[in-house]
């Protein structure tokens, strides 16, 4: 009996380890021989290699092609290529300024190092990573708040923002379910749907995954923490009916985000919803005491409030952090 239990636990660990491993591998899709690629100045891209490359190969412009990831058919023109004396780093200068907010794809043909062909590589070049991640997080949370700028998830937003306590409970549950389902759908999209060319089924699959994660959280929470489960009550099931939770996986799939970026977007969307619910519930608690004309009592005034919040959130629009 004991051995069966340990075997089962080991199997569980194996599955978890595999999952984590594939997530980590999925993050670093970079080719091994290229150690780093980053923007350098307004027009430059610098590439660091793991070993010295041949000068003749490195200086040949035909070996490099650069494009914005979203426009694979528009190649950016290269003005000059310089090689550092230690032959470990190449700087490509382009003819025009680079739009550094966009991810660029850099394809490098047949790298030659010490006379040996190291194969070709395709790398993504992005701006400073931590800042980029933070800008995704803050972007989803505040600048492009899903409720106030995209008007998604309004049914749950108006339904659960009457009291502060339920608003916060809903926000936290939502964030948990959001992160879980977004990570699962990212994984499934990258490793199952895309390789099998089934990406046209993404909506169906994502809906299934959302209900799966809600059901799983429901089942586990009921046993593990009955008090919290009682506190969440009906809101846990209501999460299924939220538009944000299906919008985020679709955005992830569209933008080809990697694991960490997906995590940041999901977290940002969840926390943004929490902020929106908290703000709205604090105001609605006060509105209860105010003298509202009978026509506007209840939901109508709440919609007007939502509009005012959206107006004020417009102040953030177009901001860029890094």
């Amino acid at each position: 009996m004991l051995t069966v239990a340990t075997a089962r636990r080991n199997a569980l660990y194996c599955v978890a380890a595999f999952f984590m491993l594939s997530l980590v591998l999925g993050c670093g899709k970079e080719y091994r021989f290229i150690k780093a690629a980053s923007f350098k100045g307004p027009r430059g891209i610098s590439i660091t290699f793991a070993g010295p490359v041949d000068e003749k190969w490195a200086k040949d412009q035909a070996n490099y092609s650069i494009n914005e990831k979203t426009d694979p058919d528009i190649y950016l023109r290269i003005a000059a290529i310089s090689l550092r004396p230690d032959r470990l780093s190449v700087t490509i200068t382009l003819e025009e300024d680079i739009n550094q907010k966009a991810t660029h794809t850099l394809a490098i043909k047949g790298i030659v190092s010490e006379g040996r062909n190291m194969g070709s590589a395709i790398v993504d070049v992005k701006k400073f990573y931590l800042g980029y991640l933070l800008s995704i997080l803050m972007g989803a949370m505040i600048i492009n708040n899903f409720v106030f700028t995209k008007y998604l998830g309004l049914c749950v937003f108006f339904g659960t923002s009457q009291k502060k306590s339920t608003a916060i409970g809903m926000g936290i549950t939502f964030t948990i379910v959001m992160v879980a389902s977004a990570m699962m759908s990212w994984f499934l999209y990258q490793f199952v749907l895309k390789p099998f060319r089934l990406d046209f089924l993404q909506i169906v699959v994502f809906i299934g995954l959302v209900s799966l994660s809600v059901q799983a959280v429901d089942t586990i929470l009921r046993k593990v923490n009955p008090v919290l489960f009682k506190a969440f009550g009906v809101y846990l099931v209501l999460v299924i009916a939220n538009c944000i939770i299906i919008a985020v996986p679709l955005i992830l799939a569209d933008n080809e985000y990697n694991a960490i970026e997906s995590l940041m977007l999901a977290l940002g969307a969840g926390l943004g919803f929490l902020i929106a619910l908290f703000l709205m519930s604090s105001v609605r608690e006060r509105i209860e005491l105010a003298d509202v004309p009978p026509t506007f009592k209840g939901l109508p005034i709440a919609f007007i409030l939502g509009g005012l919040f959206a107006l004020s959130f417009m102040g953030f629009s177009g901001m860029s952090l890094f």
Partner: protein
Amino acid sequence: MDPVLLKLAVGGLAVLGCIGLFFGVGLALAAHKFAVKSNPMVEEVLEVLAGAQ
């Protein structure tokens, strides 16, 4: 019909079926493992009581 499309359809059915089965079994196991004992009388009483909501 185009064999490529046919392959896609059958492959899709198989892959999604496998995923569905996998998660379905997972959920069933989870429900079994995290089962909460509830008093059967609660449901019986609820059945008898009137209540539209």
